[in-house]
């Protein structure tokens, strides 16, 4: 399993639109992708789960991936969250 931490920087956090982009990206990977926030775990490929997290600006998330393409998945996902602007 590979893991990395990332801080949400964009103003609205992981709301509906950024969440859609995030899910579409996560689904391209075979690995199981999870987000951890405040000791709760969220499924990176489920819209409802991701929205339930309610990640807002300044929140620290841990991303974990498990599977054949886990390293690439982590890099892409954390890079994407880092790149969200508004």
């Amino acid at each position, binding site marked *: 399993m590979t893991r990395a931490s990332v801080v949400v920087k964009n103003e609205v956090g992981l709301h509906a639109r950024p969440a859609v982009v995030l899910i579409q990206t996560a689904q391209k990977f075979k690995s199981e992708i999870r987000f951890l926030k405040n000791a709760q775990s969220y499924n990176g490929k489920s819209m*409802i789960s991701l929205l*339930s*997290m309610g990640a807002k600006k300044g929140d620290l998330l841990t991303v974990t991936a498990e599977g054949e393409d886990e390293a690439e998945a982590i890099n892409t996902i954390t890079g994407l969250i880092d790149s969200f602007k508004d």
Partner: protein
Amino acid sequence: MAVKVADLVKEFDLKVYNEGLEGAEVNEVEINRCGLQLSGYYDYFEHVRVQIIGNAENSYLHSLPDPERKKAVGKLLSYPIPCIVITSGNTVSDDLLKEAAHYGRWVLGTHKSTSSFHVDLTLYLQSALAESISIHANLLDVYGVGVLITGQSGIGKSETALELIRNGHLLIADDFVVIKKIGADNLVGTCSEITRNLMEIRGIGIIDINSLFGLSAIRIQKNIEIVINLEPWDDNAHYDRVGSEYEMTAYLDIKLPYIRVPVKPGRNLAAIVEIAALNYRQNLMNGGNSVVSKLNETIMRLQKK
């Protein structure tokens, strides 16, 4: 998990006689009536609990001469207690307030009687301090049975849940279930506040069950009683063909019956979940699987002939 005293004030609409330290929090479900301590006995004193002064403690304090009362409350408040709650709308003595201000302890008041406040606070703390996990699953109330539907992404959990809702069953949570351990052997599932009543159906998007089906289709929380795991059909796997006893799984160390349901095109999963729930209820009410024992009895009877 911990509950801030300031949150208790809001939750129970308590009167604040003295504002204590801002970070003061409650970590214990149990509550202490501090009569023994006020009378000077401090062995086994659980100072981390919420301390209650009811009618009896209050009248005892009033019966004391001034210097002794001052000494009694001073000693109690010197312990790092989270807060004192004075019940039944009783008034607070100046000594108590002075000592509370000195040590920075919360002194709160309620109009409720001691026993009714005790029950309400215990129930609240039990839930707020409960051990909890979140899992990827769906939770429904099917014929009154709390059914947790698990299985890998894309196997059809949400579609099965939707079909069950259409059949008149109730949705608690889609895709993200928060499980809390309440008491020694009770698991309660609920959803996240943000996605309450929402479901995602691939190809349609996010739907609001409350506005589509109304209040009769949703529940806020439910005890989890059985787990149904949807699995891809595997011709070599062993599936239960008789159902004489349940395989078990566990969440937060609490065991639950675990039913594996293989998924194949053409299988009506909603009907299978309904039957699993009904069957569970029947077993529960008859104290065991009556179908299998009846079958055994019939076979034995026929063999004797």
